[in-house]
């Protein structure tokens, strides 16, 4: 972000802002073409929006498919470190070794790789290697605003299922994985993508023995799980399959408006919807 406005004072204070982003190569679900991975791009977007003092973007993998990485450079990144690994090498060890030298205060990653094993373990293994905290499914990162928190702690907002949000405070350096409902990534521009520099760094990596022990085959969709009730008599099963569920509920015929409202209110309280 070359010509951005000066970040405000609180921003500079907070955690000295040294950010590393781990970027993987994604795969389009339909065409199978290499592309920037969706949540990794959102992680880079969040890193750029934080306006850090130092921003390091790292990819670890074989040099062969490095071209797809240019899509990240097109987002306004000047340089990107490529840890060159042999085909099938485990990226965790070289990444931990590289990050230990950089010692960033914040590491951003996507949630799960779009290609390869995609177990979502990498952020956790890196945090383990660096002795940092892990926070999953982050949608917002900011400086801690409560006055009593220790310096170097950050306020995060985490996405929960059903659209809910949770605020958290984290102390010390941490690894955050980005949730898909974080701010969308900016589009990648062609010019900066060409101009950006990819710096290859040779690294040592052990082969992943577990993965070569697995068998792989194309995924075939499985039949959807039907919620049929088994057991009971034939009559019960027929009823369960054909009848729409009818609540054996309470019926109030022509109550006064107040009585009706009270019944609804009590029912909502009973369901735990209203306090």
């Amino acid at each position, binding site marked *: 972000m070359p010509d951005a406005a000066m970040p405000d004072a609180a921003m500079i204070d907070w955690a000295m802002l040294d950010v590393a982003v781990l970027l993987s190569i994604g795969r389009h679900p339909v065409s199978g073409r290499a592309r920037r991975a969706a949540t990794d791009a959102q992680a880079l977007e969040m890193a750029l929006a934080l306006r850090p003092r130092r921003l390091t973007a790292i990819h670890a993998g074989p040099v062969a498919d490095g071209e797809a990485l240019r899509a990240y450079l097109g987002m306004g990144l000047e340089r990107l470190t490529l840890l060159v690994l042999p085909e099938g090498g485990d990226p965790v060890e070289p990444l931990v070794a590289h990050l230990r030298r950089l010692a960033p205060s914040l590491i951003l990653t996507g949630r799960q790789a779009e290609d390869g094993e995609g*177990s979502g373990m990498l952020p956790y293994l890196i945090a383990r290697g660096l002795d940092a905290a892990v926070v999953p499914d982050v949608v917002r990162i900011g400086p801690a605003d409560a006055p009593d928190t220790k310096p170097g702690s950050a306020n995060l907002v985490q996405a929960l299922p059903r659209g809910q949000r949770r605020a958290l405070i984290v102390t010390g350096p941490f690894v955050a994985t980005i949730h898909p409902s974080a701010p969308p990534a900016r589009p990648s521009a062609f010019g900066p993508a060409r101009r950006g520099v990819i710096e290859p760094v040779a690294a040592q990596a052990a082969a992943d023995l577990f993965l070569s022990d697995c068998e*792989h085959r194309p995924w075939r969709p499985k039949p959807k799980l039907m919620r049929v009730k088994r057991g009971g008599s034939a009559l019960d099963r027929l009823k369960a399959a054909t009848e729409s569920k009818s609540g054996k*509920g309470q*019926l109030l015929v022509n109550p006064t408006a107040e009585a009706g409202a009270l019944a609804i209110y009590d029912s909502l309280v009973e369901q735990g919807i209203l306090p």
Partner: protein
Amino acid sequence: MSQPPTTRRRVDPRAERAARTVLAGSRPRLLRQPAANAVVNERRRDPRAVHEAALVQRQPRPRYDWTRDTASAGTPSAAGVFVAAVPAIPLQVIAEPAYLVLAMLDRPGGEVSEHDRQVIAAARLLADGGSDGGGSGNGGGAVVTVSTGSGEALAEAGSDRHVALPDGWADDYVPERRAAATLALMTALSPRHVLFPDSADGGDVARRVAATAGERLFAGVQGLGPDRATRQSAGGSRETGHRPTTLMTVAADAFAPLDGVRHEARPLDLATPLVAGEEILPRLGGARRLAVDPDALSLSETDFILSAGNGVTDWRSFAELGEALGATRAGSRVVCDAGHLPRDRQVGASGTVVGARCYLAFGIAGAPQHLQGITGVRHVIAVNTDLHAEMIKRADLSIVADAQAVMPALIRLIRERRHA
């Protein structure tokens, strides 16, 4: 045919002959008279009694249920009244398990979720099909469920043993503590497998455990057998198979929850997870829920929906009510067609199929296309002027009244209670 037919005494010549035989002397002798109480042969089948036992309904036409066991027979149902057959589910006890399978449950909000049940079902597959035993139901392994709250609700889901975590852990979010508790349990019980739901929280704890223990996590298991587990990899385009590893997470909706089983769910008293959990110094803290704008949520995500149909004319009250309740507003197709609500707020077959916990419907008739959209809703409340509307039949609480009168009354009531 309301009286059960009187049956003749069934003669069993072999049994009678056996009863008359005296084996006292050098050779068997037959008595002239049959013994006073002739033995009844247990193995003889009385077809009339079997029919009588299987009869579940006499009118309007006889209905038989041949799966009912004859042991519970002898009480023919009253004529014309349907009596559901409730066979007692036999309790399965695994007294001396050869190995253990741990199922770490989420129990969001204290309830056993559908995903939790699926995890237990997957754990049962591993426990029952193990190599140490064989045969269904007693493969030698036992399923140990671990969650906050008591294990009573888990007996029917298939849990043999239950480890209760402290109740206080249910409300606050400290994943490091749960991970430490799991690691302590793994050392204490040395289970063969540990299964987690692949949900936001369960998957997070599983990965923490895997990273600390240095074990390989087999994440998002889609298919499971005693000697093979499969998962989706490469963005869902490949299937990866391997022997079941120690740590696995179970994908949502991959296994059918168990049904018609009863296990012990015997509580195990273990202090280790608690101690290990309390010792940890969490780096994540100060967790609190943030208020979210209910109308910004998509209909399929939200938990509480306030819905309007053609019977609503007072849109100002409707909007105020939505705000007062903190509910996401939605409507039937008629309402969206008329432009009272945007199109993405339509519930039903051609709108959104909602999975809310509670659905409050004002002036909706309950057309089949609309009801299809709310099949998954647990609690429905309907307000309609028409007693015979389908929505009234579907609802758990139905109020036959004018929506325009009930809405302001409800708003007033909520404001009153809030200030009180």
